[in-house]
């Protein structure tokens, strides 16, 4: 059975189309990432799949069920970390796991589950005294209690330090090894690239690209380029003496697009013939970052987080909350 199949899903808040005709399916054992800037509609979409939100249109099948109206059955079979996971302040992680085990009517070893998410050292610390990373790990631990075949992780590592992120990544990789299906949302490119089999890039409620990250780069990237450090004069010389597409990128970087194999020879010959100064020659492909920036016309900050440039995004975000 295909764990998740959605088609033409729509959801509006007033005039704002939060999710505007999204379709995809997620295969068994796959880690599928919804990547997009804040306000792209990721959380709305994942909450529709979890049965927490009603869609305006389209079809949604999660484990063969329509999540809206079948939540009570579905929730026993899925594991979820909601965005901004929280718990009762005066309970500790061990009690939290025991509580969830009682709610789901399963018997688990709390220590084992806490060890799996590397929280066993804080098993007796009250939730209110846990760090952000520890809280998020508890969220992950609770989503594991019912041994769900399908997990929804809504921004599982947002705001966490690199160590806590790595731990959570390891747990997600472990889930994949056990054959579980995972759908996660993130606005970190490296997270999507590191963890997922397939990525769907979302912007303004649409999916703008979908596939394995290499495929997305292949399709939406500008292919292979030869980069050489030199002056603007060098760029002009190459442009004048070859048929190649040459771009001067500033800061002494000349970028030449390689569409055929022998382009590299033509380029190098031209560089040598120019008699101008050059150094540091190499080829490069677009990264997911490059493609992403192109697709959502945003920027990526120093933490690898996406910032959409469109100002409409902010109002979108506020209305959703």
């Amino acid at each position: 059975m295909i764990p998740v199949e959605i088609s033409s899903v729509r959801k509006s808040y007033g005039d704002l189309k939060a999710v505007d005709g999204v379709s995809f399916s997620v295969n068994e054992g796959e880690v599928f990432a919804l990547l997009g800037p804040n306000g792209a509609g990721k959380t709305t979409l994942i909450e529709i799949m979890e049965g927490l939100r009603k869609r305006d249109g389209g079809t949604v099948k999660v484990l063969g069920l329509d999540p809206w109206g079948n939540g009570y059955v579905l929730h026993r079979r899925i594991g979820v970390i909601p965005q901004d996971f929280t718990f009762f302040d005066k309970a500790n992680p061990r009690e939290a796991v025991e509580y969830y085990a009682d709610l789901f009517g399963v018997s688990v070893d709390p220590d084992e589950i806490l060890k799996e998410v590397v929280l066993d050292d804080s098993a007796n610390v009250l939730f209110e005294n846990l760090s952000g990373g520890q809280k998020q790990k508890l969220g992950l631990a609770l989503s594991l209690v019912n041994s769900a075949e399908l997990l929804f992780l809504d921004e599982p590592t947002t705001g966490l330090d690199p160590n806590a992120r790595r731990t959570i990544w390891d747990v997600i990789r472990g889930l994949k090894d056990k054959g579980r299906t995972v759908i996660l949302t993130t606005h970190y490119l490296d997270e999507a690239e590191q963890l997922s089999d397939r990525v769907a890039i979302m912007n303004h409620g649409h999916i703008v690209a979908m596939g394995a990250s290499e495929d997305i780069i292949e399709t939406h990237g500008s292919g292979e380029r030869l980069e050489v450090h030199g002056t603007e004069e060098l760029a002009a010389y190459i442009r004048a003496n070859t048929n190649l597409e040459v771009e001067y990128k500033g800061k002494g970087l000349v970028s030449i697009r390689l569409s055929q194999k022998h382009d590299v020879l033509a380029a190098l010959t031209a560089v040598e013939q120019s008699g101008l100064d050059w150094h540091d020659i190499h080829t490069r492909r677009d990264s997911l970052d490059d493609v992403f920036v192109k697709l959502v016309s945003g920027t990526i900050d120093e933490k690898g987080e996406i910032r959409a440039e469109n100002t409409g995004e902010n109002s979108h975000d506020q209305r959703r909350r």
Partner: protein
Amino acid sequence: MTSTRRILSDLRLFGRGYLRNVAGLFFGLIFPVILILIFGAIFSSGLGGTITLYVQNHDSGPVSSSFVQALNGTGTVNMVLVSNSENFSQYLSAHSASDGIIIPSDFSANYTAGENVTVTVYSNPSQSSSAIVSGTVTGVINGFNLERFGGKAIIRIAQTTANSQVTKYIDFLVPGLIGFSILVSPMFSLVNISSEYKRIKLFKQLSLTPLTKIEWLASKVLFYILLSVTSFLLMVAVGVFAFGAHIVLSPWLIPFLVLGPMFFASLGMLVGTVSKSTETASVVGNIITFPMMFLSGTFFPITLMPSYLQYLAHVLPLFYIIDGLNGVMIYGNYAQATIDLVVVAVITIVVFVAAARLFKWRED
């Protein structure tokens, strides 16, 4: 569908959290006891106010009416005439009163003829009001005897002890403050957590588990019943051992200790769930709670309040709980307690159902 394991697990988690919260523990258990100690100490010498004297006049002659006028003229008692068809001692008991007199039918005739006549005085010797009543009645009788017969004791007094228990202020205070704690803990707590859990989206998170909202609400109700019973036992112990309160413990108290917390937990839930924000919830909760806290007979019997406030008290749910507790614990007046219990049961069911229906785990 409803699972005991889930309810008990939620009860355990919530109860443990409650016990770890010093403020909650203080307000739930310690604060009402402190109130008993303070008010019990302040008013241990008794209450002021006018004493009600019930009068049944079987005589239609002129002397008895001037006798009644004379009694009224003393200003120490507030007189209430009782119809001749009533059984007097039952009437006193039904009105939770112990002070009254019966004027016999031959009062005017005998007085005029100079023959002995006996006025029956109901009182409770161990109560301060009874001494005032006896003194007042004796004074008026002496006046009549003196005026007509030069002090010869034509009118005599037959003392009868009324069935009603001796009531001291502390006897009122214990049921009143039990009512207070039945109101305050579940109400404030549920208003707060139901709006707060909505704000931090904890309810949404719980909706992703098999826990149902009815199970969640049931566990809170159970918790506050347990808390109220604990608080009840503490307060009774302090009332009895520290102030020698006269309190009847009877199985009749159980329905009040169950329905009371259930009512206020549901009401708190309802307020928290319909309010848009935590702040609104808290304001609405206070508007409902504070008048009830003082006007329902918590700190003093409502008969001491002006009559318009007494009418107001009758629309406050806590009044029926405290009135019922008073009926059982002080007067042994089960007829009154039954009426109170019916009122409490009906409003509890209405509010519980409304809270359960309007309370939402998640938004659309």
